[in-house]
């Protein structure tokens, strides 16, 4: 059996993909029921001119760096050519990844007001004279 690796890239110009790599798993909140499509995961930020990045997911902040891969990665996609003939198509090339290899730091911020507090605030607002 022979599987051809095809490429539709023009010359050596292959579209570059990106990798954001974190330790462990990214999970959605258990109470989140909707399909996760389009759901924001977090905010990737480059605070300075250095290749240092932060990735804020929920109340976790990760610090990482952009690293060039020692060897490039090809993104291959299986394509069916006929019923028993498959080819692999090069759909992208990866040369860099943004790697977060340290444990996340908890962001200590003002806690979200609880429902009770919100109600109290609303009640206080309602009492204010117009």
């Amino acid at each position, binding site marked *: *059996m*022979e*599987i*051809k*690796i*095809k*490429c539709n*890239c023009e*010359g*050596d110009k*292959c*579209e*570059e*993909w*990106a*990798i*954001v*790599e*974190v*330790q*462990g*798993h*990214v999970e959605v909140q258990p109470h989140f029921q909707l399909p*996760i*499509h*389009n*759901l*924001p*995961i*977090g*905010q*990737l*930020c*480059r*605070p*300075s*001119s250095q290749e240092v*990045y932060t*990735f804020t997911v929920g109340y976790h902040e990760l610090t990482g760096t952009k690293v060039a891969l020692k*060897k*490039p*990665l*090809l*993104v*291959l*996609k*299986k394509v069916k050519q006929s019923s028993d003939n498959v080819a*692999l198509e*090069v*759909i*992208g*090339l*990866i040369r*860099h*990844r*943004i790697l977060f290899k340290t444990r996340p730091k908890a962001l200590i911020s003002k806690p979200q007001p609880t429902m009770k507090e919100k109600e109290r605030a609303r009640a206080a607002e309602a009492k204010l004279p117009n």
Partner: protein
Amino acid sequence: MEQGAEVVLNLQPSSSVTISYHPLFGSHDDIMLLELDEKLLPDTLSQRVVVRGQPDQDAVLCTKSKTYAMKFVGTSNSVLLIPPSDHSEFADSTMDCDQKAQNQIPAASVIKVAPGTMEIVEVASKLDKLKYLLSMNPYSS
């Protein structure tokens, strides 16, 4: 509006981008990553490389002159794969009002979480098949 892998790779100092799940996020088992030596890239991109093997054998990657064993190396990290924004296969064909609003801020979306990569190691060519084929047609003058 900049989006996709480009904005992640070219993120300017003191700027940020929202990473989100792609509208087509899924397991996409038909997409895999293959780690190659830099020197094999030109041959691969000009379609001179094939994957060969019998169903009962491990697959090998063959260039004109060399054979490489292929093996899958898993990772316990989450490798979030972000395609370029203009990638035809994953481009949003439709755009509703909500999406339009989202497009106002730079965003890059993750199409899949890669479970690992395929790596290659140079091995001796497997000549059994060739010997077998030749033995069926011995030379005779």
